[in-house]
């Protein structure tokens, strides 16, 4: 299954090393870079528009809840 998948994902490529174990130091270095890349974006300021959007969704829902159920029947 994994060999088949590797062959399909990497046609014509060299699949012999796909489960090769990397030097732990290299793995660690890649791990640090991954975190640096990801955390750089995670730590960026969040644009206000997302909070505005959620506030609008909440307000719409509250209006609907306030106006709707039994008293309109």
């Amino acid at each position: 299954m994994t060999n088949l998948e590797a062959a399909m994902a990497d046609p014509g490529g060299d699949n012999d090393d796909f489960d090769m174990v990397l030097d732990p130091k290299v793995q660690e270095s890649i791990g640090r870079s991954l975190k640096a890349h990801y955390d750089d974006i995670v730590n960026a300021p969040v644009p206000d528009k997302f909070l505005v959007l959620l506030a609008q969704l909440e307000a719409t829902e509250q209006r609907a809840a306030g106006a709707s159920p039994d008293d309109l029947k």
Partner: protein
Amino acid sequence: MISNDFKDGLIREIPNLRAFAASLSGSIQLADDLVQDTLLKAWGNSDKFEPGTSLRAWLFTILRNTYYSLYRKRGREVQDSEGTYAERMATQGNQESHLDLADFRKALAKLPEEQREVLIMVGATGLSYEEAADICGVAIGTIKSRVNRARTKLAELLSIGGVDDLGPDRTSTAAIQRARSETVGF
């Protein structure tokens, strides 16, 4: 009625959603559109979220499905016309550690999507192999082999032989973010 817990959870996950979206699409611009769509869908489907399970995994599933169904083509077009965020940021970084980060991002962008997404999920977001497998709808063994191939490919692209210090330089992060906001209208 949507609970405050759910709404607070969404707000808490926004930074992670942006980072995952940017990693997936290779574009900061598309990332925020993708996050907005994800929040709208999550709100509309809040009754389908099971309390006690991982909200992050649930939101990543929505974001990923949205990306593959609507954004993938757009992502390629944006990258073709404007280059990836990695390339833009590469020209803005003037400190060595950020050049390293920019190099890393360029290499990351070259990975096949299916490898890049799992490497990010498992290596940066704190999701487990099992959660990544659920999100992608594949077996855990498949996730493991994708992660292995992604690492091997990255090491190859970066020509890592020894150990480099690729740690982030926090003092210049703010400057990079300012530069980025001026360039892409964050």
